[in-house]
């Protein structure tokens, strides 16, 4: 057992070279009908993951129709063509395929997974789903009931309460300022026609991005894309303009009777296409990027036991960028957690990071990057995300170089420019002792 310890020490000091990057060969495929997709062929397992993403998301809701797109997406699995909801579900089960739907502030996604042996049938069903959803009134009412049930739960969830309050403060009247699920009133008032209109506003070729991974070749994919998406209208609803971000420094306390307070905190952020973005990304990794070693985890959790988890994250959305974080702490400890986080915000603004922290963050970020490519579905999703962000098709091969190119000066200059301790706002939900809302 004694020799064993020395082996550990030796290994720890000599194995810091970068691991090989997973080879992900992306091909750009353009269908005969002119639809572009990114493809990774991998024939080792007889199925394909297909990711379709439409830009706009719930921000395309028409005025007064908040929640229409979210409800519409929930209704896509409730029948299409001649098949009413349950027959539709049986048809999908009989194919052993899965289609799932997601709506966010910036995009609506369809993630499909289907076997090679019945690919054409699965695509035919997905085509009907996209082009001929039934939106039967009975289904609208049933799924509306589920959405309303969720909204009532959200209204008593401290994390949701904090999220809504923070968004309203930050984005005001912009669609980002309200929950894409809508409100009890707005969802209750939605009609079938509103759902049909929402469908029309989202699914259009000018907003479409496609990724496919698995047991399919370029020719098969091209034909499939035309079948599936060729008849979509050319243009969807116009994307709203940028949001004006307003985050006053200070604290908002929202009273809620629960033992542990939850807090969201944030300030103005940085755009994804800002040349300083990678410096900000590396800086955030050091401050609160999710590992046990971040400054926030070290100071708030490891040294003081004030929380189970504390994180910070850049939120560069299409129409605005903010820099946020979250923490949960018992009511009698939240005030101290807030102070420690403020101190760390200050320290980052004034002192920046050390060379060692920078190197550790870079080795982590560059080493962790290939771990994301762990399955057909995740790779399809990443490829579509790259297209939505306007990244080049060879981005995966160059991304780690961009991280490695970040210098200590880059990070510390950026930290001094970006970090705004006076503009940092905490929205706290609970009964935190010794914390009060800042005066307006």
């Amino acid at each position, binding site marked *: 057992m004694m020799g064993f310890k020395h082996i550990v020490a030796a290994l720890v000091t000599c194995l810091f070279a970068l691991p090989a990057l997973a080879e992900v060969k992306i091909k750009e495929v353009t269908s005969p009908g002119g639809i572009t997709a990114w493809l990774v062929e991998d024939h080792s397992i007889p199925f394909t993951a297909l990711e379709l993403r439409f830009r706009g998301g719930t921000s395309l809701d028409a005025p007064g129709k908040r929640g229409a797109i979210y409800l519409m997406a929930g209704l896509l699995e409730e029948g299409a063509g001649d098949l009413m*909801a349950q027959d539709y579900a049986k048809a999908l089960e009989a194919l052993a395929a899965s289609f799932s739907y997601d709506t966010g502030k910036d995009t609506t996604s369809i993630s499909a997974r289907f076997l090679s042996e019945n690919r054409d049938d699965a695509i035919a069903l997905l085509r009907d789903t996209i082009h001929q959803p039934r939106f039967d009134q009975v289904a609208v009412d049933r799924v509306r009931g589920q959405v309303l049930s969720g909204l009532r739960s959200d209204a008593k969830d401290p994390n949701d309460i904090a999220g809504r309050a923070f968004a309203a403060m930050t984005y005001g009247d912009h669609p980002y300022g309200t929950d894409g699920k809508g409100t009890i009133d707005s969802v209750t008032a939605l009609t079938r026609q509103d759902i049909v209109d929402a469908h029309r506003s989202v699914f259009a070729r000018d907003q479409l991005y496609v990724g496919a991974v698995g047991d399919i070749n370029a020719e098969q994919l091209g034909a499939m894309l035309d079948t599936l998406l060729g008849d979509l209208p050319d243009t969807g609803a116009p994307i709203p303009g940028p949001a004006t971000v307003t985050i006053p420094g200070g604290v908002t306390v929202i009273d809620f009777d629960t033992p*542990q307070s939850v807090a969201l905190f944030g300030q103005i952020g940085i755009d994804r296409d800002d040349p300083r973005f990678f410096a900000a990304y590396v800086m955030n990794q050091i401050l609160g990027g999710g590992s046990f070693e971040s400054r926030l985890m070290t100071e708030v959790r490891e040294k003081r036991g004030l929380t189970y988890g504390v994180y910070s994250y850049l939120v560069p959305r299409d129409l605005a960028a903010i820099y946020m974080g979250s923490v949960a702490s018992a009511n009698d400890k939240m005030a101290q957690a807030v102070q420690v986080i403020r101190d760390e915000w200050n320290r980052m603004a004034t002192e920046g990071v050390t060379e060692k922290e920078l190197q550790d963050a870079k080795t982590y970020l*560059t080493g*962790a990057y290939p771990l994301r490519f762990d399955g057909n579905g995740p790779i399809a999703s990443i490829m579509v995300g790259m297209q939505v962000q306007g990244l080049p098709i060879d981005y995966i091969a160059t991304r780690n170089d961009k991280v490695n190119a970040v210098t200590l000066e880059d990070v510390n200059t950026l930290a001094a420019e970006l970090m705004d301790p006076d503009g940092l706002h905490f929205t706290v939900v609970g009964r935190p002792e010794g914390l009060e809302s800042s005066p307006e």
Partner: protein
Amino acid sequence: MIKRIAWATAILSTSWATAAIASDELVSSFELNNGMQIVVVEDHRAPVVQHMVWYRAGSADEPKGQSGVAHYLEHLLFKATDTLEAGELSATVAANGGRDNAFTSHDYTVYFQRVASDRLELMMSMESDRMVNIRLTEENIVTEREVILEERNQRTDNNPRALFREQSNAVQYHNHRYGVPIIGWRHEMETLDMADALSFYGTYYAPNNAILVVSGDVDPDEVKSLAEQYYGVIPANPDLPQRLRTEEPPQTAARRLTYKDARVAQPYVQRSYLAPERDSGSQEQAAALFLLAELLGGGTTSYLANALQFDQQTAVYTGAFYSGMSLDDTTFSFLVVPSEGVSLQEAEDALDQTYAAFLEDGVDAEQLDRIKLQLRASEIYARDNVDGIANRYGRALTSGLTVEDVQAWPDILQAVTAEQIIATAKQVIQPEVSVTGWLMRDEEITQ
């Protein structure tokens, strides 16, 4: 079906797999001389490895009065060892571009790293080190106890559904430790100390009580030789106790509870039944229960959804759940979330009537065929996620099953007949072993 996932997690504290495994050819298993078991699941598509050590020790193995100590110790294993400083293991994994974490359940505690496959040796050197060499300070004990109390706040005390589940579970088990929450009862967590943690560690952390599960871009022979080098040199614990937990007496009285909380927005009814788990060499009854849950509550086409969500529209969500991977008796449970304006009593009555009608109607042969087809397909999809396959072996081997049991399971599922499902349902779903719970708003406080 928007809230499906959220409601599913409301009733089951641990995830359950619907997928079966057919990828036997990807799996190798062997044993070291000190009794440590090893399972390797190969996938060479990306140069990534997941390295996990599973201990056959979970919260149900804790001494009375020390609930939460298994999970507390899991946290403390990230502190110092003879050779590593506190936090150094995780920092080293991160500096090598990897992720690490750990989790605790009733029957197991697991430590894992995901990292580039050429770093496997480093992972083994550190993981084998903390199997026997941790060095705790009094400060670790105090601070980390605060962390687990905040974790309890976050997971349980801030969540009325979790509090309800905890109470319901406590009522389900008269005498077995599954009735005690994994995170621990707060009053006992507050008293956990160095001696408690080290005693659990000394008793259960040993190679003959551990399973190494490695998945990804690895060669089984290389895994074996590295494992021999790092884990094989650690002596077995000759005093490892047998895992004999206090057993349930016959349950002879249906139980009911009502949990009220001002933070409840959506009331619901849940009912659980004590049910047999998957036993080594005898998984047929569990397979029937697994299919019963799928038939009754496995989504839009299930019997409960058809009756309560589509026909009667008395519920916004229904579900049936069975998790057979468990060392001792598990549960089969129902969840009904009533529609607006439907009372909990009406929802419960509708559940009872619908279940009775199901027994009368018998199994829909087409539905059973579709479920079996999907299970076969899931074996194909599962190969896209070998870490998921690895997890299932870890759970199985810490739950009294063998590699052979895991590999037999898909065929056992396919062989279950409609008659066996109904017969098993009649045998297991009995009021005497049930707990019915209502989660309610506290109207007086809510106003």
